[in-house]
């Protein structure tokens, strides 16, 4: 990925000001474009400064690539305008759906994992890429139920990548969460992903929901030891930039920076 190297962090309004003046800074930033379409005025100046000083990846949440209907061109045009304005070349989204027949849920919902869905996604990926004039990078999402599947998740993901030509945002935490929730081997899953297909990687924290015996991909906690270990193993075969996602219970940058430094150590040890 041009300009994206080393370790990154998901930018949040909560630590925007602190980051703008910090001596410890990430190599690159990931932003959620929808959060910055209409930012609070108080954040705008620092946001624009950071957009000028960092390599940036935009990681969207509203595309709903798996929806049956055609992509929302009004949304795509607004997104393109935003990406062009801040000269953001890289854009990623989730293999999921969040809206159906125009009704929004604002959550990443699991898709039926079928051959027909692979074809459907490949067509929609083409349409989105044409409209945005950028390649689309897709993330393996977490899911708590598989509404219908003809194939294993990893096979579904690999077929989508193969058929569409898109690259993967490999979310290591999602692989871990899904492996625990759906009883498969996370390392075997990652071994099946062609390394050259991985554009970049995510790690994040999750929550153990004991009542349901379920791990929830909350992005609200520190990264756990198992996920650090899985990342370290992944880096032995898959060399790609990595970043930390933190979307809930966002701590100050002075706290998050410790986790960022740990990420740099893990990535450094794998070199």
């Amino acid at each position: 990925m041009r300009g994206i190297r080393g370790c990154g962090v998901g930018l949040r309004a909560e630590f925007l000001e602190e980051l703008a003046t910090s001596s410890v800074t990430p190599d690159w930033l990931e932003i959620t474009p929808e959060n910055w379409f209409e930012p609070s005025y108080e954040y705008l100046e620092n946001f624009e400064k950071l957009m000028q000083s960092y390599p940036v990846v935009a990681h969207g949440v509203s595309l709903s690539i798996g929806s049956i209907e055609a992509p929302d061109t009004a949304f795509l045009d607004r997104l393109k305008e935003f990406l062009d304005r801040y000269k953001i070349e890289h854009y990623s989204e989730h293999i999921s759906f969040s809206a159906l027949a125009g009704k929004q849920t604002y959550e990443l919902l699991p898709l039926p994992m079928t051959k027909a869905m692979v074809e459907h996604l490949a067509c929609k990926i083409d349409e989105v890429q044409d409209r945005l004039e950028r390649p689309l990078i897709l993330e393996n999402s977490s899911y708590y139920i598989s509404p219908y599947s003809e194939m294993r998740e990893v096979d579904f993901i690999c077929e989508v990548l193969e058929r569409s030509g898109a690259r993967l945002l490999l979310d290591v935490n999602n692989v871990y969460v899904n492996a625990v929730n759906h009883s498969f081997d996370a390392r075997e899953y990652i071994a099946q992903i062609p390394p050259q297909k991985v554009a970049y990687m995510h790690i994040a924290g999750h929550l153990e929901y004991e009542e349901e015996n379920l791990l929830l991909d909350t992005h609200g906690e520190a990264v756990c030891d198992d996920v650090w270990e899985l990342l370290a193993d992944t880096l032995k075969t898959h060399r790609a930039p990595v970043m930390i996602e933190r979307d809930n219970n966002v701590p100050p940058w002075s706290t998050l920076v410790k986790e960022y430094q740990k990420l740099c150590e893990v990535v450094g040890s794998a070199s």
Partner: protein
Amino acid sequence: MKLETAVMQRFMDILENREELVNPLLNRHQVYRDMVYHRFYETLTNIYPILTEQLGDELEELIIEFQKYGARSYLLSDMAFEFGEFLKSHKGSELPYLGDLLWLEYGELLLLKKEHPKECSTFSWEFEYILSDSFLFRELRYPVYRGDFESEGSYPLMLFYDYEQKGVYFEEITPFAYKLLELLQNHSVKESIAAAADSFNVDTEALRDPVAQLMQSWCDKGVIKQLKE
């Protein structure tokens, strides 16, 4: 894609509570149902804290109804506006203050998101002024900003962005100030003052000093800005 469409539609039906879950505590569909509900609840209670208090336990039921009705905007903040419109059509007759309260709470969000270039500092009769985008005004029927949802009357109110505090504040304004703001939307300062004076049967000259003070306070708050040639 018939099968896939049916599977996804059923999933949506479950999320919208159109289908009973056999044992919700052991059903992972309930996890998604809770997540979607929580996303709506969190957004709406953040944007409408006073409305949340007023609706109490009824809010949950209304959110579920709204989910069935369908939010169309891809931005959560726009979803909150849609929820307001949904409420007006479903609860407007029961809650006559609803329009005022939604305007007050959503207006704060609108102003927080706007750019506020502060341009004007000293008012002078020599210059022309226009209204800025950094404020909103409305004649409320209920003084909801005081927590009073019953005293029907006329309550002109202004919402403005405070540059120092980086927040949105409200201020009660006089009927004359309200009229003047209305007129300033389409007329020059002098025409507006003359028309406002006429409406209130006051001599324009007598208004010169109080209006200058009022205009200065609006300059300070960024409500009006100097029209540049």
